[in-house]
């Protein structure tokens, strides 16, 4: 028997460290060669780490969420024969009694094929609750004046706490200063429901993996970029007529058209007039890189969180092929099969929540891009036209721009081009004059 040390291999892309996002095995598990042990995340891709040998997991070298350097010990296996621990120059671990006992234990269960549950832990609030202290917590009847000393009343007023909502721990429900404190840290969700029981569990969810990445990127974009957001109403009645007639005639091998391919075409035409909007900012060189090709990121909700797969060279795609590409890359993002080239390289991004898109949004730019086009929900509304109200289909576009480089005037003009093209769909398909 010997120890076999598995270190984090070079996962490519020139990364020096990676975040451990998943363990697929636990201590004591028997693993077979090539069986995935865990996964680390680099940029946007998850990389599984396979076991190079057969053995039993002796110890895990990192917790989920830890950042592990390439070459650092990821876990130790116990293997038949010599192992590699000595070869690697690390002294064998002192053999203590429990280790022997464990070593002697025959393999108990097969390695799980499913990932361990998410890193979620549940624990009680550290301070003992009123209920735990055996103190009777009362809720008052509606309209009843809360019992509280003058100083408690004053304190509640100054802290903006509605005393009527605070459960009192006094012998007859008097609200104390301590009650105010605990209320202000966690107002009971049960509110004024009589005899409601405050729920005191706190669920702790580690911010790891995709979520951490998303959080970092959002934070960075929001703190570095001064956003300007413009909301404009677009009449899509004509476009919707066109879209449904095209969908009615489409071939079976063609992807059903959503609004997106049309919007993408409007973006292509818009950035042709304002190329500074189709650009990336290189902070280190202090350069704006304007792209002739329009690579549109499609913000996509997946099980793992928000991912932005990219439809490349939209300027060269027909409406139908745009639709097919959107469908393909977003499916790949959802099932996790998107490769790196499909997840990077966008020059401008569309964010659409469809019928959940609200009336207006303040989309956050997919840095280092210059702009993001947010699509709000379509609705039918009465529009005054020729002396009468007529029903028109409208939606709002909420577009954010990097105000360091895009002035309000340019942003507004860009949106007006999109509006004009979408409201008169024929314009979408006019070839630009050659220059």
């Amino acid at each position, binding site marked *: 028997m010997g120890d076999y040390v598995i270190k984090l291999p070079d996962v490519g892309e020139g990364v020096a460290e990676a975040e451990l996002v998943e363990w697929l095995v636990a201590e004591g598990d028997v693993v077979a060669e090539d069986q995935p042990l865990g996964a680390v995340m680099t940029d946007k891709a998850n990389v599984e780490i396979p076991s190079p040998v057969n053995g039993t997991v002796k110890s895990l070298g990192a917790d989920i969420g830890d950042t592990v350097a390439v070459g650092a010990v990821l876990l130790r296996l116990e293997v038949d024969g010599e192992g590699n621990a000595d070869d690697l120059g690390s002294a064998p671990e002192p053999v203590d009694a429990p280790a022997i006992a464990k070593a002697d234990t025959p393999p108990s269960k097969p390695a799980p094929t499913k990932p361990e549950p998410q890193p979620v832990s549940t624990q009680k609030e550290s301070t003992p609750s009123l209920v735990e202290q055996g103190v009777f917590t009362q809720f008052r009847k509606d309209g009843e004046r809360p019992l509280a*000393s*003058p100083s408690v*009343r004053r304190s509640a*007023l100054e802290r*903006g706490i509605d005393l009527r909502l605070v459960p009192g721990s*006094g*012998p*007859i*429900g008097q609200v104390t200063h301590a009650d105010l404190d605990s209320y202000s840290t966690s107002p009971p969700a049960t509110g004024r429901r009589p005899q409601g029981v405050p729920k005191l569990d706190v669920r702790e969810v580690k911010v790891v993996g995709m979520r951490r990445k998303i959080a970092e990127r959002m934070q960075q974009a929001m703190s570095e970029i001064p956003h300007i957001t413009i909301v404009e109403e677009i009449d899509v009645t004509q476009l919707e007529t066109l879209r449904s007639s095209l969908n009615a005639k489409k071939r079976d091998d063609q992807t059903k058209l959503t609004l997106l391919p049309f919007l993408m075409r409007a973006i292509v035409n818009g950035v042709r007039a304002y190329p500074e909007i189709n650009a990336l900012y290189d902070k280190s060189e202090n350069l704006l890189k304007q792209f002739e090709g329009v690579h549109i990121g499609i913000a996509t909700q997946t099980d793992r969180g928000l991912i932005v797969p990219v439809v490349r060279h939209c300027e060269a795609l027909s409406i139908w092929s745009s639709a097919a590409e959107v469908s393909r890359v977003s499916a790949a993002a959802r099932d996790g099969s998107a490769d790196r080239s499909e997840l990077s390289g966008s020059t401008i991004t569309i964010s659409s929540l469809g019928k959940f898109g609200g009336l207006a949004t303040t989309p956050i730019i997919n840095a280092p891009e210059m702009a993001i086009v947010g699509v709000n929900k379509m609705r039918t509304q009465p529009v005054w036209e020729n002396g009468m109200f007529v029903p028109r289909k409208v939606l709002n576009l909420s577009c954010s721009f990097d105000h360091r480089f895009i002035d309000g005037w340019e942003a507004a003009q860009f949106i007006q081009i999109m509006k004009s093209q979408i409201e008169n769909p024929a314009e979408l398909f006019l070839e630009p004059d050659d220059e």
Partner: protein
Amino acid sequence: MNEITCQTLVIGAGPGGYVCAIRAGQLGQDTVIVDAGDLGGTCLNVGCIPSKAMIHAADEFEKLTQFADASPIGISASKPVLNLKKTVAWKDRIVDQLTTGVEGLLKKARVRIVKGHAKFLDGKTVEVEGETKTLIRAQSIVIATGSAPRELPSLPFGKHILSSTEVLALKRLPKSLVVIGGGYIGLELGIALSKLGSKVTVVEAAGALLPAYDKALSGPVVKTCKRLGIEVHTGTMAKSFNASESTLLVEDSDSNEVEIEAEKVLVAIGRRPVTDGLGLDQLVIDMDGEFIKIDQQCQTSMSGVYAIGDVTGDPMLAHRAMAQGEMVAELIAGEPRIWDKTVIPAICFTDPEIVVVGLSPQEAIEQGHAIKTETFPFLANGRAKSMEAEEGFVRIVVREADHLVLGIQAVGRGVSELSAFFGLACEMGARVEDIAQTVHAHPTLGEAVQEVALKTLGHALHI
């Protein structure tokens, strides 16, 4: 014309107004206070303080009168002689000291004092007519103009028909005094003058003396009136005064007309808010009858214009006005404040004194509470016995379900000093157990409060 611009202008320097101005000054507001009369308002000059001085003098005089007869405690003295001029002068000195004190406090808080009658020009501007005219512009204005004795149309105030103000300044004791109004002001002064030697008659339109109090509380006061020989006509209306005969014509509940000897008549039928000449018609101020309507923050219907004290209605009590004044100054300074007092104690400085804090048994029942109520007599209190103050009792009203103290009342000599303790219990949301389980010093009148709490719990010790 002088022109002043300030942050906070307080109109009226009574207890509400001067407290408001002091607090505003403390909070760093540039504050001006205006009053045509002396600082301290009714309370200090012609109300609470001088009446208590006169009541004290009357009590001392009565004590000596009793010693001149035969006192059970073994003290005898010769018949006392009253020099009312000196008594009034003594009282005036107390008033002077206190009003001077108020002036000092206002100055210490850097409040500017302007003498004269204030009149609104608009919601931000007031013209003051004093020795010179002053125009004051203020961001916030607090109306604290108080109240004045209410007049009977058939008996306008004059040489013989007096208000409490004139009674407190009498140079010579009238042989006979008819008090119209058997409320607390009429009885406090009526009892005092009776003790000093006037023949006092009380005429009350309602069916009993102290109609605002229940019979149990007013009983010992009625008893005192009897002891002092004060004639009481209840259910009786005053009709007219005959100056040449020094008689007051009254009509009793059976429509019989009776003439009562009356060298002087004290009309004490209540107080009216002082708003005349204030120019309220220049503002868009909502009224509540004759009072200025206010909300829970003493805001009037005009933003930036507040009203406090008697001008806003009942209870017309100095300590309510002071608390309102303090609150408004803090509100103007941007502090979050609201009128959230549980109780406002009320005291009759009659003989014996009556203290009412919180709900009486009847009020509690009317408000839908299931209650427990108990009384404990001072007869069973050692301290009361040792100071010849056996008359009276303490009463407590608690909510049956959880023993929350809803009210405490007492009648007895010196019980006014217990009001602070009653008020604290009610404001703190005390249960009757809290009072029962607090050690009360022996021998004190306060022990009666602990005993009444124990009695409510079914185990009083000293009865």
